[in-house]
């Protein structure tokens, strides 16, 4: 159930961005999740929606994009997308390859609705600057 901890981190950053834009309500949040992250997208969405219920992100859609796992053979350095448990190299048969991608967990974008033009800030870190 670490989905809740991760949804909480996504929500915190999302609300920071909303606050920097006059508290605009959040319509959509896009995240990229690597195939090694042991996250169930539906659980992540559920957790995000539950935590967001009382916030500016209430009802926002969480789009989870999955990133593929890519590994490199420890023997011959062949790069491949593994299709077995042991990440066996299709070229030389060595198992236990090293992961190069698959651990991504990235907040890609936040879409805000009803942003008043004068409070809109294109940068996510406008410290101190508050819309009124």
């Amino acid at each position: 159930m670490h989905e809740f901890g991760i949804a909480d981190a996504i929500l915190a950053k999302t609300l920071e961005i909303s606050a920097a834009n006059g508290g605009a309500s959040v319509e959509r949040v896009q995240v990229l999740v690597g195939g090694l992250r042991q996250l169930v997208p539906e659980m992540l969405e559920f957790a995000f929606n539950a935590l967001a219920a009382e916030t500016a992100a209430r009802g926002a859609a969480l789009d989870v994009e999955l990133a593929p796992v890519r590994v490199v053979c420890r023997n011959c350095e062949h790069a491949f997308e593994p299709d077995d448990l042991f990440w066996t190299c299709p070229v030389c048969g060595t198992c236990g390859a090293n992961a190069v991608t698959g651990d991504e967990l990235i907040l890609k974008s936040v879409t805000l609705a009803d942003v008043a033009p004068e409070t809109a800030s294109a940068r996510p870190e406008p410290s101190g600057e508050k819309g009124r």
Partner: protein
Amino acid sequence: MTMEIHVVQKVMKVNDEIAQAIRSRLEAARIPAVNLMSAPGSGKTSLIETAIRSLRDTVRIGVIEGDPDTTRDAERIAALGAPVVQINTAGGCHLEANLVNRALDDLDLDALDLLVIENVGNLVCPVEFDLGETRRAAIISIPEGHDKPAKYPKLFRTADVVILNKIDLLPYVDFDEPRFTGDVRGLNPDASLLRVSCRTGEGVLGWLDWLRAVVQPTAQVGR
């Protein structure tokens, strides 16, 4: 108007930054940290107790105990006279770096040679959170079955040592040890693999040697 803001930021940034801060703190104090991960009841606390009892005169061990709800494990460690800090996760299924960082404030790091962190019993969630540890230990016990590495591969892929505990129970359970060993080797050819019984003491020397090597990586000459 609607506005899409591109962020591209690591979601775990906060945890990872605190983990890095922990790493610096521990490096400054010259103590390595071992993060023990397993299902509930595999023997994490028993392995720590064994280490404290046996290494008492040579390695000063401090312990951080992650526990969803009780102080029982911390009491077991305190009864042996070792410094211990309890982290109550209030039902949470894993430790996070901020909790460990706070717990470190309550330990006298200069009086320690090794920090052992007992994570919350869980084979999935703890794996995702860097705690600033030096080494990761995955523990599995005989009654849990030989198929656990195949079912929870990430824990075993990222472990520095895999400890098979409760080997005294092998005669009573249909645990296919060659299969288990093959799976662990296939997932992680680099991990050390130890067979231990905290009950009979079999294999405990291997666990103690592994810990000594973590504390003093150069002192492995005498074999």
